[in-house]
Structures are given as C-alpha cells and as structure tokens.
C-alpha cells in the first residue's frame, strides 16, 4: 500500500475495516487524477495523460491482494495501477512534469510509469504489448520458485492484438502464475466494441478454449472485485493462469484532462449511468449507510487525502524549481 495511506489508516481504529482501506485507496487515486485534470491547463504536466477516473475499483480491488514482491504490468492508463500497488505520489507527479525526480527520471512520462521498488515493472502504451513482458516476468518467478505472481492489467482492445493470443498460449503452455485483469470499458479511444468485435464473439469461450481459466465480474463495486480475486488468487499462485474480465466505465476522455460528453459518441443514457456506477460514490454511500464510518469521518479522510495530494504537488513544484536552479547554476 502507498506509504502515506498506510500511516493515515493506522491513525484511527475506525479505519481498520478493509472497506475503509478500499475507500482511501480509491480516493487517493481520484484526488490525484482530479488534480492532474485541474492543473493540466497550466501546461505543467507536459505529456499525454490517460486518467483512471471511474476505473479505480479494479486497480484497488486487485492490488489489495498483492504483496510488495508481486509484479504488476500496466498500460497507457497506468496511474490507478501504480498508486494501488503502493506507488509514490510525489514520484509519479514528478514523472508527469518530466522531472529527473520522477519514477523514470522524466524519461517515460505518464505512459511509461515504472517503479520496480514497489513491483510495478512496466507500463506499455502499445496496446497488447505489455502481455509478452508479463509472461516473461511470470516465467522468471516460476523458474525462481518464488511464489510471487504477476498481474497484467489490459483493456478490451488488447483482445484485438496478436500479442494477446500469443501471450495467452504461452501462459497456458508454461503454466504461469499470471492473472490477466481485463478492464473492459467498452471503448478504444472513441470506438465502441460494436465496431471492433463481431456480435457473436464469446470471450469466455475464446479464453477457455486457449487453456486459460476465466472469471467474469463487476468492476464498479470494489468489494466485488476484491471477492472475485479472493476466489482465484491462490490458484494463480500455484501456476494456473487466469483471466478476470471486469466491466468498467471510463468517465473522462480517452486521452487528456477533460470530460468529453459533448462529442456525443456515448449516448446520454450511457453517460448518466455513471451516476450509478462511480466506484467512489458507491462505496462511500455503502460505508455511511452501513454505519462503518460516519459521514464526518469520511469527510475528514477525503480532506486529509486531498490535502496530501495538493501538498505533494506543491512540494514537487518546489523541488523541481530547486533542481532547475541548481542545474542552471552548475552549467
């Protein structure tokens, strides 16, 4: 878990409930993404960003099962995966502004986030191409007899690439400890699945037919995600590759800081469905309604997390300015 969140959650015994951990993780990701969205027009984040807003429950529900030594491979939409795996907010924001203090020393930007100190091994923005690397990581873990597993987050469009099928075949052939988490948000940029997949496509049969186990579930309810992963994770650790297919909703535009409702490629009904699907709101309502934590405590938690993200941003700016000043003085 993210180090800041860990210390925050240790402060109050009311925070022991794992559902509060889930909430705090989603809130942290949400606060970061909203900050990026808000500050983007300042032109400080000078790289393409693919925000995770709406899709956070999957990253969190999966990653809460992972140890530090388990490995994660992500895509162009990597922020949620990185933070949920225990990534550092300062280092991620620094990477987005191209600072040498970033997790890739400013060489990778948002689309190539990597931090092996938390087992976050690579983000690969060429769709589908992350899977072969995940296969290699998993084969290494198996050869080393480590009991660590590899999680590869992919989107629905990955199922249109050759790399996906080549990798699935290898996962089954080599019996690898790999969990492929398919985040199906229904869109590749602006294109709905209906123009990319035949109506007759059967994902379950496709995956199972290749010798990989398959489980399908809801990606909006973080508790559901968590429970589904509970069912299968020990099987993955004993070298049974599994694909977990979860439906989710990408709230923002494919690439960039804005909502893109006005473009009209998603119907009004579809967009309004988000009101019922927002993972953060769903969980918050549930926590309050079931009396796990009070509305006031939730507000305190949100304020703390939001404040931390804003402070990280300020601190990142200061550190970066200091670095630039030193750099200029020494050149």
């Amino acid at each position, binding site marked *: 878990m993210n180090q800041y969140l860990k210390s925050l959650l240790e402060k109050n015994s009311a925070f022991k409930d794992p559902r509060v951990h889930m909430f705090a993780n989603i809130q942290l990701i949400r606060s970061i993404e909203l900050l990026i969205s808000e500050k983007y027009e300042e032109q400080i984040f000078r790289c393409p960003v693919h925000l995770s807003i709406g899709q956070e429950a999957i990253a969190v529900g999966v990653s809460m099962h992972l140890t530090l030594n388990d490995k994660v491979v992500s895509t162009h939409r990597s922020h949620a995966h990185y933070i949920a795996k225990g990534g550092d907010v300062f280092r991620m924001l620094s990477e987005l502004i191209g600072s040498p203090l970033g997790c890739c020393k400013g060489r990778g930007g948002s689309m190539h986030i*990597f931090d092996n100190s938390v087992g976050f091994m690579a983000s690969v923005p060429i769709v589908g191409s992350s899977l072969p690397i995940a296969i290699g990581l998993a084969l*290494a873990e198996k050869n080393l007899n480590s009991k660590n597993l590899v999680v590869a987050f992919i989107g629905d469009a990955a199922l249109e690439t050759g790399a996906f099928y080549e990798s699935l075949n*290898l996962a089954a052939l080599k019996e690898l400890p790999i969990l492929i988490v398919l985040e199906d948000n229904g869109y590749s940029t602006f294109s709905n699945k209906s123009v990319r997949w035949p109506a007759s496509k059967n994902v379950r049969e496709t995956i199972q037919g290749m010798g990989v186990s398959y489980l399908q579930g809801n990606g909006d309810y973080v508790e559901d995600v968590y429970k589904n992963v509970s069912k299968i994770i020990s099987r993955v650790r004993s070298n049974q590759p599994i694909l977990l297919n979860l439906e989710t909703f990408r709230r923002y535009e494919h690439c960039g800081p804005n909502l893109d409702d006005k473009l009209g490629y998603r119907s009004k009904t579809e967009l309004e469905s988000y009101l019922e699907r927002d993972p953060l709101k769903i969980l918050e309502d549930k926590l309050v309604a079931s009396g796990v934590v009070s509305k006031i405590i939730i507000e305190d938690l949100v304020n703390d997390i939001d404040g931390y993200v804003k402070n990280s941003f300020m601190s990142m700016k200061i550190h970066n300015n200091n670095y630039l000043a030193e750099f200029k003085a020494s050149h």
Partner: protein
Amino acid sequence: MSLTYTQFINKAFDESLRDDARVLLFGLGVGDVGAVFGSTANLQSKYGSDRVFEIPLSENAVTGMALGLAIQGFRPVMMHQRADFSFTSAEQIINRVAKTAYMSGDIYKVSLVIRMIVGRGWGQGPTHAQSPHAIFSHIPGLRVVAPATPMDGYHLMKESIYSNNPVIFIEHRWLHQTVEKANNEIIMPNINEARIMKSGIDLTLISLSYGVIECLKIAEVLGEFNLKVEVINLRSIQPWDKSTVIQSVTKTKKAMILDTGHIEFGLTGEISSVLYSELFNSMSHPILRFGLPMEPTPSSAALAIDHYPSIENMLQKIKIHFGFKFDLKDAIKIFVDKFPYKTKHQDQPDVGVIGPF
C-alpha cells in the same frame, strides 16, 4: 583443434550455460533434430528443457517474454533461423527491448541476445535472405554485432551473453562451414572493437560478416600484384569502431566498403559520411561502396548472381576506381584458381577460406 563456426557457437553456448545458471536459450528449432543448423546440438539434454527450449511460433510474444526474463535477472538468448522472422517482433524489439533500460532511468539492465541468421543462395529469395543490421543499428538502445570468423562468433557470442545491453547478433549462414583452429593465444578485441584481419598500406577494405571473407579473397588476389591491402572486420556495427577505421584510411588514403545489406541508407553511407568528415582533404580517391541494390533479393539463382556483388565485378571496379595497374584478366584467373566456385550457380557457400584468420 579445428572447429567449424557452428561448433564454435555451440561451444560458446555450452560454456555460458555451464558457467551461469541465468543463461537461457530458446527459439524455433533449438530443441529439434536440426538444432539450429547444429549450433544448439546436445544442449537441451545437457541442461534441461527449462533452460534450453523450443518456442511456439509466437516470435513477438517470445521476444517480450525474453525481455521480462531479462529484467528479472536472467540472460536469455533468443534465436531466429532466419533474421526475416524477427520482423514479426519489431514492436517488442524496437519499442520495448531497446528502450526499457532508458525508460527505467537505467535501473533495469537488459541482458538479452537476439541471434538472427542471414540466409543467402539456393533460392532463399526476398524474405529469407535479408540482413537487418542497418535497420536495428538505427534504433538507440540496441547493440548490433556481426562476426566474420568462427573465433569471432565464439568470442562475440560470449561477450553478447554477458553484456548488460540488448545485443542483436547478426550471423551469416555462409559462415557456418568455415573452419578455424581454436587458439587461446590470440587476444581477441572486446565487443566494441574491429579487428584488422590483414595489414596493408595501399587500400583499406571495410566489411562485416561474410563480406569480410570476400574482402580477404580480394586482398589475396591483389597481393599477387604487390598491392598491400588492409582488411577491417568491423565485428560491432552499433557502435562501430570509428577510430580503427579512420586510422587505417589515414594510412592508405583509399577505402572500399562492402555491405551484406542494401547500399542505400545503410552501413556504407554511414561509414562514408564519417570518413568524409574526418579525412576530407587527405583521401586520394572517393570511397568505393558495394552492397545490395534496391530490389528484393531474387529467388532465382540466375538473377541472384547479379544481385550480390561478385568478386570479379569488385576487382574490375577497384581497378578502374583507384587506377591500380594490375591486369584484370590475370586477377580474375588468380581468383578463380584460388577459390573455385563449387557450382556454376554460385549460390552455395565456398568454404575455400579456412582459418587461422
């Protein structure tokens, strides 16, 4: 003990697998009866199928898998029996393998060898005879090497396996039957350095891979006319050994470059550009370049004769271009007598050159 090139590669694999448990070998044919032209013979039975193994026909994913293994500390060697098949994995090689160390802020060390065998002759044709050294040399983050002799193959393979960078290992099929005596007294240059195969003062011939064998033949023929030709075996293509080449041409004032790839946008242009920049006023003649024309390699043996630069043709061009006084007919006769073609089609390797090199 004399060994063929293939046996030397096998020895390099065998010793690396024996010495370092992190070394893995895989590719199409690695574990089958052909054993990649014999180069991986007996290794699977000796080291087990976890370390030496056959792959599915998924070159793209297997390249990414090799990268995943490399960033976990393994030293994989992946191989293609024809370099042309590596193009199915261009995405992994160019976007992933080449850039991973850089994008990680140099935290990852990618020790990965991709061995690519270049075909020629006997109808190999458009998609089984390409030498992609220039293509991969254009990609920052990749090292490209191309041995020319059996001992070169042995040393470069071992250095590539132990390198902390991804190495594209370009290997000409026509080298496989060349023979050289194992000689521990020869001190081989390191992976970045060229090797002067023959010293001379009248002309520098620069080449790589099988082209070096052809240059040695040219040098031997011209030697009969008292022309002292220096032959440079580049060995490493990316980076290439500029100082050795510049030093040689400074001395001879004349350079010929022979490429096993196409002339345009390739190795000959790159080397020429540096030589012209460095030695613009001191060369006596413009650089003479040989390589493949801008057409796919034909399958037909008859057409292939004109596609590859022949030694007869190169001798003629060398004479005219540099104004050497030797008799061309005599030179060609000497060449044909010394290195007789095995077939009239000229599409099989001539194993007439045997080391020590």
